[in-house]
């Protein structure tokens, strides 16, 4: 692309009444090309010596064309990626109220600890004698996880929440197999509002999923659950607090009914951050539960780092925990990988090496820097923040269920009824206000759902501004005079409303050279 001709009138110029710029940029909103569209083919940022003349041994098999690498100098590369990084909305930039995802602040002490030379420079293939401290670190974290959940065992290696679900459900399947009931018990119950991964995990393991309806309070309908339980049920998969942000208040009756029917209780620990330090899942009769370290223990989320989903297990399921087991023999830590070293019937390996060591380090740093009282306070503050949001917006937006809620506030779209504004429009308008939208249209059981999770770490004045922005949007939506503005939102973002359906249906996943690029390369 020849950028000497300017971009005036291009995409960035917005509506025709706005002033345009030569570059197409709008101050710091830079129209960033793809890296392949930059620079000059053949330019090299490194001064390499001429390669020596060698006898060709490829028997005529030579590249027909140029390799097509972008030709950029080092400053151009640095600037390109720095500018791209500035286009991202991140937890380090502002309120990120994505409900069900728990966009939790990543304390910098975690990063400092993870970069200590004795930890950051480890390699998983080092001799065990040289990683004794790392193994002790894993065991220390395991001890905390067992203590906080009130469970006797934990499998540390699963790589993320869904992987943890797989691990837990495989342990349940193995336990059923040992009882000779694997074939008979083929049904897994899951509430209608379950995370999609729950039924997906059960189905992937060959179970048949049966949904359990919610009652009018947004909790599991206990009578419907009891009616569904029988000798063909393997387990229930339940999130507590549930995806509506509500504590399953009949959880003890639920687990008793499940156990009386001979089934197991898988708890999805995605929302453990709301109850850690207050409630021990083991006391509720949970048989296994994965813990998303990024949600409850502040490790980086999504693209910010690999996941880690340790699974705590009851005494009944503990023997099936997958390898490796970190075991202390005398004074030495070992990584047990065969039946001779462990007292159980492990599933085998679910993952290479020991688990996500970098995440273990950060999670333990978080736990130890907070202490038991700090963890409890973080959970309480998360719940307080969500209830503050619900109370502050309850008169102008419509909470889906009566409060109090737990760590997330769920609204439906009935306050938008007959305004012409949809949940999607409302969420897009939040972008103009400088916020990442909340989770929308999930959970599916609530019409036009808006799920807001402020987390514990948003300062009150920041939360007040966020609430003010939502109140303002709700008022404008209800005024009936701003429908066109909502339909056009976001209006101030570098790109306007994108065709998300087209992008999902016909994604353009790779750059292809244009003719001018090919000519320039020749």
């Amino acid at each position, binding site marked *: 692309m020849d950028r000497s001709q300017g971009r005036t009138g291009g995409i960035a110029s917005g509506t025709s009444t706005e002033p345009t710029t030569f570059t197409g940029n709008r101050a710091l909103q830079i129209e960033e090309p793809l890296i392949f569209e930059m620079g000059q083919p053949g330019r090299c940022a490194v001064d390499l010596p001429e390669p020596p003349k060698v006898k060709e041994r490829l028997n005529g098999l030579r590249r027909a064309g140029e390799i097509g690498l972008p030709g950029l100098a080092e400053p151009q590369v640095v600037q390109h990626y720095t500018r791209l990084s500035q286009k991202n909305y991140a937890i380090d930039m502002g309120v990120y109220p994505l409900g069900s995802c728990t966009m939790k602040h990543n304390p910098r002490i975690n990063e400092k600890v993870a970069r200590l030379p004795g930890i950051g420079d480890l390699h998983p293939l080092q001799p065990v004698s040289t990683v004794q401290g790392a193994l002790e670190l894993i065991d220390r974290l395991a001890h905390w996880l067992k203590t906080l959940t009130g469970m006797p065992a934990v499998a540390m290696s699963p790589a993320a929440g869904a992987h943890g679900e797989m691990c837990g459900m495989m342990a349940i399947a193995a336990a059923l197999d040992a009882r000779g009931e694997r074939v008979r018990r083929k049904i897994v119950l899951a509430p209608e509002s379950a995370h999609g991964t729950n039924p997906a995990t059960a189905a992937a393991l060959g179970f048949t999923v049966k949904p359990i*309806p919610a009652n009018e309070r947004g909790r599991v309908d206990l009578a419907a659950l009891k009616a569904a339980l029988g000798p063909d049920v393997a387990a229930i998969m339940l999130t507590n607090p549930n995806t509506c942000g509500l504590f399953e208040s009949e959880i003890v009756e639920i687990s008793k009914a499940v156990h009386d029917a001979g089934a197991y209780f898988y708890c999805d620990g995605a929302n453990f951050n709301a109850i850690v330090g207050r409630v021990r899942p083991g006391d509720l009769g949970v048989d296994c539960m994965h813990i998303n370290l990024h949600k409850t223990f502040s490790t980086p989320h999504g693209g910010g780092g690999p996941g880690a989903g340790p699974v705590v297990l009851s005494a009944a399921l503990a023997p099936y925990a997958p390898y490796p087991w970190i075991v202390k023999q005398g004074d030495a830590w070992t990584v047990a990988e065969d039946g001779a070293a462990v007292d159980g019937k492990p599933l085998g390996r679910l993952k290479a090496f020991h688990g996500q060591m970098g995440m273990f380090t950060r999670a333990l740093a978080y736990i130890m820097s907070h202490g038991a009282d700090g963890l409890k306070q973080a959970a309480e503050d998360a719940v307080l923040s969500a209830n503050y949001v619900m109370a502050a917006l309850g008169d102008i937006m419509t909470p889906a269920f009566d409060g109090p809620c737990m760590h997330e506030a769920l609204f439906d779209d009935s306050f938008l009824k007959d305004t012409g504004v*949809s*949940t*999607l429009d409302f969420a897009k308008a939040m972008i103009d206000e400088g916020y990442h939208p909340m989770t*929308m*249209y*999930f959970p*599916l059981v609530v*019409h*036009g759902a808006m799920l807001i999770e402020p987390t514990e770490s948003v300062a009150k004045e920041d939360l007040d501004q966020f609430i003010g922005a939502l109140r303002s949007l709700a008022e404008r939506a209800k005024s009936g005079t701003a429908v066109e503005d909502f339909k056009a939102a976001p209006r101030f973002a570098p790109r306007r409303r994108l065709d*998300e*359906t087209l992008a999902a*249906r016909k994604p353009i996943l790779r750059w292809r050279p244009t003719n001018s690029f090919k000519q320039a390369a020749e």
Partner: protein
Amino acid sequence: MAEVKFSEEHEWISVDGEVGTVGITPYAQEQLGDVVFVDVPAAGRKIAKGESVAVVESVKAASDIYSPVSGEVVEANAALADTPGDVNTEPMGKGWFFKVKLSDKGELAGLMDEAAYDTFVKGLG
């Protein structure tokens, strides 16, 4: 007067002579939420009762649409490609999916009339 029948999968079919017009019910569009994409079968395609013949995608989910009858597609609602929201605003009008030439009108007997469908929907809570 065209005869309108309903399936348990929440499709409607309005039969006029040999040709039935198929779409999804107001209840179905309400459950789906804002429809953003509809994929309808091409004219000429032979379809069987119960076969997955179309896809409707909303902000919440993508769902298969099952043909309530067997036959041959004679016309697809091409306008839905540009205005999928018609499925929400006029599910039984402009939001129709496709027209099918029935190969076995006897299949209609297995579908519900409007009163039976209303009762069926009420039973879903």
